[in-house]
């Protein structure tokens, strides 16, 4: 530690005081080192406190380091070019000036190493300050490159430093999402983002190859968090925010900056998605896919493999993959064979119960809005949905029923599903084949929507009313289902609970005497009070 230090150990607030004092001392030490070279050996004190136990001391040391080495970088007092070993430096024929620089350069390297280690420290504050410090170093190095420059325009960016930072950020053991969200602020700078993206790709390739295709949830989660926090610029004009001077960067990536950005972005995502993902990760990726990934890819069609794979998985993931597929089909002329058949097979009772119900029905509405679809297909969808409606909760029913009505409205030849006067008298069995996978073979057109007839007896008044509509010819106007897509059960309940004025509530006229007794009591048949 620094000399001339008299500690008052007896005091109660020793720790705090000492921390404060240490800070003051550290800044003094930094000043001293910067003042004259004879105090150069004090740098070891700083490095020592950098590895201390106490959080405050470490943070103070980090601050001191960043001050010291930034200043040294500024003064170009760090050795440039290929660094000789420490022993070589002592023995080799270097001038005193060079020796000093080599010494300091070595200290700088060790400091960076310690800081990188700190990135996986358990204390968040230390992680954060270490990261900030490293970024400062990166900025300093960018301005005053440590490599020998062959020609003056040569652009140099501290790639190694960024690469090391990213490698440590994407930890395999701990969830770094908090730190990554802090890192997001640096990602706003164009050059940092560019190099971070390429570093991620390298890192992912390395790590996943090592794991040989197995899933690494924590790591992949970190990667996803980092990647999803990258927000791409929309236009070239926006490329204004740089960490290192601009011309150099633009020269380094010769072609159009946005194009290059997009290419790197795309390669990063493809590199990530090419490996096997945990199911929850599929959902996360698919949720943001159409919004914040596809638009920034130079060749969105490259995603087709991933989307197809996701679509094959089934369940909620297929539903989500639908969205990405839709964008590809709609905007990029993707030809997807048997799309409707697959969509038809996606329809199973669980679609009404999953979280992404609203999104699914929104998309299904878009897919089925074309009036050029064959009648058999639309009828199959309508019948299938009606059949599934028998197990659906009321909130879903309030979406599905108008949905089916809209299908029938768009395709008037489907009206036979609810109005078949020719076969009015003779009763027949429902010819619809539930298990048939091909909508063309399921004989939906020969059937009728008896399910909706059944739902007219549904317990919820709104559903019953909606189901009653098939008793009369449907109106011309299509129902807008977008309003009911997101309705929750509680909102439905509130409609009854929050009625402004209830005039005379009907009451049960049968006198209640016991809890489990009375007309139509079922509970009492199976349960008793005690």
């Amino acid at each position: 530690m620094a000399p001339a230090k008299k500690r008052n150990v007896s005091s109660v607030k020793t720790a705090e005081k000492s921390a404060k004092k240490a800070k003051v001392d550290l800044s003094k030490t930094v000043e001293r080192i910067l003042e004259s070279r004879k105090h150069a050996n004090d740098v070891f004190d700083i490095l020592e406190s950098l590895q201390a136990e106490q959080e405050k001391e470490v943070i103070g040391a980090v601050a001191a380091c960043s001050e010291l080495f930034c200043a040294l970088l500024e003064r170009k007092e760090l050795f440039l070019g290929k660094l000789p070993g420490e022993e070589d430096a002592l023995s080799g024929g270097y001038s005193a000036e060079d020796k000093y620089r080599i010494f300091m350069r070595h200290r700088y390297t060790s400091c960076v190493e310690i800081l990188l280690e700190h990135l996986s420290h358990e204390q968040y504050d230390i992680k954060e300050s270490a990261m900030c410090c490293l970024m400062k170093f990166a900025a300093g190095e960018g301005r005053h490159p440590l490599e020998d420059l062959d020609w003056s325009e040569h652009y140099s960016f501290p790639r190694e430093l960024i690469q090391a930072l990213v490698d440590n950020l994407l930890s395999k053991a701990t969830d770094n999402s908090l730190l990554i969200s802090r890192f997001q602020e640096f990602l706003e700078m164009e050059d940092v983002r560019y190099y971070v993206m390429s570093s991620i790709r390298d890192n992912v390739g390395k790590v996943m190859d090592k794991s040989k295709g197995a899933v690494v949830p924590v790591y992949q989660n970190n990667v996803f968090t980092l990647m999803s926090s990258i927000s791409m610029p929309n236009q070239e004009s926006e490329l204004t925010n740089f960490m290192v001077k601009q011309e150099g960067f633009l020269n380094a990536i010769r072609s159009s900056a946005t194009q290059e950005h997009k290419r790197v972005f795309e390669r990063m995502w493809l590199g990530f998605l090419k490996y096997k993902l945990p199911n929850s990760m599929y959902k996360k990726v698919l949720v943001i896919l159409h919004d914040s990934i596809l638009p920034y890819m130079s060749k969105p069609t490259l995603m087709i493999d991933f989307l197809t794979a996701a679509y094959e998985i089934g369940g909620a993931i297929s539903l989500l993959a639908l969205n990405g597929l839709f964008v590809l089909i709609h905007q990029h002329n993707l030809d997807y064979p048997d799309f409707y058949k697959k969509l038809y097979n996606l329809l199973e009772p669980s679609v009404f119960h999953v979280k992404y119900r609203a999104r699914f029905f929104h998309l299904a509405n878009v897919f089925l809005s074309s009036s050029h679809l064959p009648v058999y297909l639309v009828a199959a969808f309508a019948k299938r949905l009606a059949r599934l409606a028998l197990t659906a909760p009321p909130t879903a029913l309030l979406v599905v029923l108008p949905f089916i009505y809209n299908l029938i409205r768009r395709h008037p030849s489907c009206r036979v599903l609810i109005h078949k006067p020719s076969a009015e008298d003779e009763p027949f069995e429902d010819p619809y084949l539930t298990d048939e996978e091909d909508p063309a073979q399921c004989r939906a057109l020969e059937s009728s929507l008896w399910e909706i007839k059944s739902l007219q007896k549904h317990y919820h008044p709104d559903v019953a009313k909606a189901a009653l509509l098939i008793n009369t010819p449907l109106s011309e106007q299509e129902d807008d289902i977008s309003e009911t897509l997101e309705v929750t059960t509680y909102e439905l309940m509130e409609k009854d609970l929050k009625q402004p004025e209830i005039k005379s509530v009907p009451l049960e006229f049968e006198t209640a005497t016991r809890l489990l007794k009375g007309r139509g009591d079922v509970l009492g048949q199976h349960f008793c009070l005690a």
Partner: protein
Amino acid sequence: MGKAPKKRSLADKVRKTKTSSEIKNNPFEVKINRKKFDVLGRKSKHDVGLPGVSRSKAVNKRKETLLKEYKQKNRCSKFIDRRFGEYDTKMAPEDKILQRFTMERQRVHEKKDVYNLNEEEELTHYGQSLAEMEKFNDVVNSDDESEEKGLLSAELTASHFGGGGGLLRKKALGEEEEGGQRAKSRQELIEELIQKSKQEKRERQVQREEAQELTEKLDQDWKNIQSLMVKKTPKADKQEEKPKLEEYDMMVRELGFEMKAQPSEKMKTPEELAKEEREKLQKLEADRLRRMMGEEVVEGAQSQIHFSADDLNDGFILDKHDKKTLAYQDGKWNMGEEEEEEDEAEDEEGEGESSEEQESDAEEDEVEEEEEEEEEEEEEGSGEDDGHSDLESEQESENEEEEEASPKPKKTLSKEEVKAQQEAAKAELPYTFAAPESYNDLKDMLRGHTSDNQRLIVARTQKSNHPSLAVGNKLKLQKLFGFLLEYIGELATRSPPELSTIDKLIPEVYALCQMFPDAACKAMQSILGDAAHSMEETLEVKGHAAFPTLDMLIYLKVTALLFPTSDFRHPVTTPALLFISQALTKCPVRSLQDLTSGLVLCSLGVEYVSFSKRFLPELINFLVGTLHLAVQDKASLGYIVVPPFRASGKYSDLLVLSSSESCRSWSKKSLPLSATQQLDLENDPDRDTHRLTCLSTCLDLVKRCCLLYKDLPSFTHIFQPIRTLLSKHLSTQTLPEPLQELSSEIVEAISSTPVTQSALVFDKRKPIPLKLLTPKIVEVLDYGKKRGSTREEREKERLKHKYKREFKGALREIRKDSRFLAREKLNEVMNRDAERKRKVKELMGSLATQEGEWKSLKRKKK
């Protein structure tokens, strides 16, 4: 031009002398405006015009106005009338005259009468001195009054009001001057009338005098004969007759005022009573059905609380069941046998009690009364629930005509026990309670009492704070309902839950709910809303939620007890059903407790829809899921399990038996409701028993559902998974005999329903009538009115039209004015010329005479 005005003026002169009728009858004066067609019932003022009359009128008017103006033209001097208010048009002429008069008086007074003390001007009325009149010299003949009652003649009015003077004077004037024919005849008529009446009067007077003379004469004669006659005086009879009449009157009056026998209610035969009962129930049932169908509620028709004509609006509710009226049957007390068929718990004590109660004084103090009731009960040793009968008797005493007795629970306690309890209660409990102000008050009040006593306390609180007793009581009791609900919730959350206390409190809750439906609805809604809201929140965070706790299950059950579950839409039961469905879809089953909760919810669900037979998909889903839990081999299912259940997973074997041994020892027992909260089953046999019980409950519910939804068109599709489950999977497993039977029954029921359906068609509608091509005829009732425009447009049209007419009229008037003026000017010029001519002639004449004279003089000189 020069001639015409002369002619006209001559014609005007002639016209002036003639009466209007003469003019009208003169065909030369009349111009008839030809009508194009006749309209019945229309009166036109303009069919006959009198051009001459109107022209002369116009000319006269112009002479008075335009001519004067013309004459005044270019003159500086002007005649100004300086009389007071002469040019003030705003002043009424009477005011003017009055003001002028006072001013003159003042002027005169100032000058002359400064020293005049006494002398005043004489006041007159129609020229007669008022001072004279005040002496009333001319007294009206009083003889006339008797006969002339109600007759009004001109003379009479004249003499009475003095107003006839004008008439009289007019008459005098009329005699003098020669007026119109009509005026003359009228005056003559009046004169004739007066003469006639005078003559009559005179004649009548003469007659009367004669009659009086005759009677006097008769009296004289009678007195002479009287002494000769026997003294049989009919006059005495007459005198007695009068008091007799009065007596009769009095009697009549007395009879009228005497207390009549009050028309009592007709004593009803048991048949009538039963019929009434049935009708009332039928009405309520019809009401319920109507609400179930979701028809629009007709105002007034559905008021749940039936007010009888005698209702004092004191919250006393006439119960539908046991309206007993004091009735005789074959000369004996009718002891209410008719009720026995319905409720055997209805006993004779109740009847006897009520009859006794009727005898008791209604004005008695409440507390005393209650004590008395207690004693009575003790004496009778009734087996009723003490608190409840207390409540009843109280109500009975309040309203003697109608007794209420809600159906009593079956005797559960022996007589001795009840008696002991009653005594204990009598020793401990006060009879009045203040209504609790807060929930804690209620808790304090009920703490440490047995459940029966708690109920008694609540009942007495309710009694002693009856809304008819004080103003604020209604609010207090409404609050009490909320507190009670909260208390029920708390009882249910205690461990172990005190469900029997809740059970005891149910009648009180029901009674309060009947009293204040709105408040009860609000309280229940807030409970449901809170529970649903918290569930929604956990769902948003976690995606699934825990099963509702026991208090919520109890609340749901209480809701079913208090409110009709069959209504198409009900402010309480609809949300409650939604809550059940939400819980059944979103709460994953992870333990046997969860499953028990789920089955409780299912039973409640079945209960809610059992009357209306509404379709509750979540119920079927849950039952399928439950059955799925019991399937051992989860491969090749053949049906789809709906969330919250999973086809396979950690908790998908909850109901699979650990050993088939337990099947033999198992027998059906009711599960305690507390099993939804905690379940300690240490060993496998216990667990298996519980599993089997759950399974049997589930199967029973499935069976009920089968019966409920038998009529749904998609019945087979709805029950397809259950059928597959039962016939393919569960039948292969070893299950106790009753369960096997149950499941085979269900499979039977499902497969026996017809699978064929007739195709859907729209409802038959009334055919839309063809378009008819006959013209539409609109009856026009007001000709000349513009139609088919808005009010503003019509107003604008009207104003435009008016303006046009006025403009034309004004133009015509101006033209006439200028024509008139031109004529006048011409007249003037001609008059002037004629004057000049005359003067020249005169001059020439005089000159000629002068010349002649001079010549003659000259000749004379010569």
